[in-house]
């Protein structure tokens, strides 16, 4: 049992597939959702997948270095910045328009 | 100043500590026997659960007794000797009390929230070094992890307030969320000072780094100020008076847990007290040396005498002292107003915290005291 499990120990490919699946799920959310907050959440999933990708590649290709970690760190910070501004826009839009449905936000004047 | 200097320039003691956590043992045991690993795992779970229930009851009893004596009265006396079994009776009653979910509430979230609120202190209980050999796990990102996990507690409170479908709950939850997030900044800044001093984020590492003196005085004024900031900020994180705005009785009836009854309310109650313990334990660990005995300079006889007291007792004594201070605050001070609370955080504590961090950096850079900068 343990031997069989050990044989299936995940390599680089498995990790990368995981990242790709997560990214695709995020993409799906981004394409289907209409609510602005939900869109931001989907974008978070995609960013998370990207960060994971960086770390995975760092771990498998150059474990002695930390460049992947640093890049993932930057991604996390970017995600935070994005969500702050995004949420602020959502709240402000809601105040003005009383809606957060993006299909209603198709003209420029508030 | 000379006194401080003497204390800080502590002589190396004969004792050398080689801490070993339960997780270490479990990992070491993996090649030998999985049963042993499972045993260690079980021991950790049972230990934390037992600690949880014991601490909850003991702290509630202590709080009631201390409050009573602050107020010239006796406190519980009628259940068991000195009322010792009072909280046991309360617990039993709460377990068998009706668990009511309001008709318009979000049922599943309403039931989930108390567990989420209790999750944080339970995880933190596993990370605290009670004694050199009594600790469930020691992460090398310990402090980062502790700060990070605080977010879960906020989620529990927010969801509790949201799902109850009650105006007071909602206001209480929003207040709690805003308050905890704000004050976590200051708490983190205070923690960073200790990280800066000890050069490690592992809790055991921090305890070991205080062998030659506790950070509260060995870190100059910066250590002491960080201690004060952390004490205030963590009191606010706990939602206790003078920062108990989220559940301020005279305004919000009972805040975010207004609609909770029975066992689920008990969970919130328990979470509050366990949180108090973990915060006090962390304060003791980070600033007061944790389980490290009290040593003074080169008084070898004195130091040896101190070493005879078991480290667990040291830990407990320091934690109790901090718990007492937090309770003392509660039974003396009135409650702040929301804007005053935010004023205190953003205009007093946060700038002070940054300045303090700067001072600490200067202390470390100029090496005002000869202490090892990390490993």
């Amino acid at each position, binding site marked *: 049992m343990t031997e069989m499990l050990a044989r299936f120990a995940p390599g680089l490919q498995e990790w990368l597939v995981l990242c790709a699946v997560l990214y695709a799920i995020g993409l799906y959310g981004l394409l289907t959702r209409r609510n602005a907050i939900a869109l931001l959440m989907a974008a978070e999933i995609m960013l998370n997948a990207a960060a994971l990708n960086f770390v995975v590649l760092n771990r498998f290709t150059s474990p002695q270095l930390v460049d992947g970690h640093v890049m993932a760190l930057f991604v996390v910070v970017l995600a935070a910045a994005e969500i702050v501004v995004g949420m602020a826009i959502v709240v402000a839009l809601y105040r003005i328009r009383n809606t957060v449905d993006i299909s209603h936000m198709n003209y420029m004047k508030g | 100043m000379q006194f401080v200097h003497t204390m800080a320039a502590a002589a190396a003691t004969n004792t050398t500590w080689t801490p070993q956590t339960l997780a270490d043992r479990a990992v070491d045991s993996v090649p030998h026997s999985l049963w042993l690993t499972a045993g260690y795992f079980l021991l950790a779970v049972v230990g934390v659960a037992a600690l949880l229930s014991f601490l909850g009851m003991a702290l509630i009893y202590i709080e009631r007794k*201390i409050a009573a*004596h*602050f107020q*010239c*009265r*006796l406190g519980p006396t009628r259940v068991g000797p000195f009322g010792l079994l009072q909280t046991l009776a309360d617990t039993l009653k709460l377990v068998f009390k009706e668990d009511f979910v309001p008709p318009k509430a979000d049922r599943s979230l309403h039931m989930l929230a108390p567990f989420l609120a209790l999750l944080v202190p339970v995880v933190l209980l596993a990370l605290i070094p009670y004694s050199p050999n009594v600790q469930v796990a020691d992460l090398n990102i310990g402090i980062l992890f502790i700060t990070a996990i605080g977010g879960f507690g906020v989620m529990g409170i927010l969801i509790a307030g949201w799902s109850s479908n009650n105006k007071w709950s909602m206001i209480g939850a929003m207040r709690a969320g805003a308050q905890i997030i704000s004050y976590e900044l200051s708490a983190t800044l205070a923690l960073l000072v200790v990280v800066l001093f000890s050069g490690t984020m592992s809790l055991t590492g921090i305890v070991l780094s205080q062998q030659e003196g506790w950070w509260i005085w060995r870190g100059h004024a910066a250590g002491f100020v960080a201690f004060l900031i952390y004490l205030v900020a963590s009191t606010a994180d706990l939602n206790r008076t003078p920062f108990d705005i989220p559940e301020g009785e005279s305004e919000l009836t009972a805040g975010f847990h207004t609609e909770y009854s029975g066992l689920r309310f008990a969970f919130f109650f328990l979470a509050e007290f366990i949180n108090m313990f973990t915060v006090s334990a962390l304060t003791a660990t980070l600033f007061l040396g944790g389980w490290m005995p009290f040593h003074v300079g080169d008084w070898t006889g004195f130091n040896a005498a101190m070493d005879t007291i078991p480290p667990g007792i040291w830990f407990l004594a320091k934690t109790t002292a901090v718990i007492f201070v937090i309770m003392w605050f509660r039974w*003396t001070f009135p409650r702040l107003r929301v804007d005053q609370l935010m004023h205190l955080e953003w205009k007093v504590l946060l700038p002070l915290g940054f300045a303090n961090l700067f001072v600490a950096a200067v202390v470390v850079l100029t090496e005002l005291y000869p202490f090892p900068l990390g490993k």
Partner: protein
Amino acid sequence: MIHAIKVAQEERLFAGKSVSVAVITRGRPPGYLRVAFSAVTGLLRGLWLTLGYLWSPEAIVTRQYPENRATLQLTERFRGNLRFKFPNEKAQEDHAAFIEQLAHETQTHAHVAADLVREENETRWYHNCTGCGKCQEACPNASIKVFTRQGEILEDREVDRFVWRLDSCMFCNACVQACPWDAIEMTGGFENAVYDRRLLVYNLNRLAGPRINYIEEEENPDVRKRMVERRDRYGGEVPLNGFALPNLPPVTTPMESGSRAIDADAQARLT
């Protein structure tokens, strides 16, 4: 901000009069450091005060009620339970001794034993009441009802039942003050909690009959005995004044578990 509080006395003309007033004024706000210092010292002084109480056990003022029942002394004038004065002291003392013995033998509280003893010396219940009804008139909310009867021996009005409603009494002492015959008094009793409010109606007199001095004027013990009649605890009708409120579900005891249905309705109506 911590200001200095000043209280200054001055004379002020008000409502056509010179009134001596104490004016509370505040100084200018002090500087930042002074404020911080006084804020911290103020907090510390408060902490010190409470710590002082924690440290001194003699400050505890709690009286432990159920534990101190034996030694609890109420003040002489305390307005607790209303009761008849029974002036026959000799008979009182004899009876007290008997009750004590009974309580000792049956190992119960004295008041339990006293409640249950029925066969006893009637002379101890001779009272001062004439049934004049002054107390009933003085009572603001009709908590006293005096039933009188025409005495057989003396052929005069005498008290039959003196009904006192503890459940509505407001303990204003008016009845005691109004009584011209010094027949009733307020005592220190207060342990009256019951499960059923119907038990809160008392018959204060133990004997229906004339005032004690009329009885004692009579020499013949048989006639004396015929002048009075035993009265037990109140057994007549109790005016409960119970009406159900409109728009409220009727009260059922025990509560059925279906009572939750009312919750939502009531909530909808009220909010």
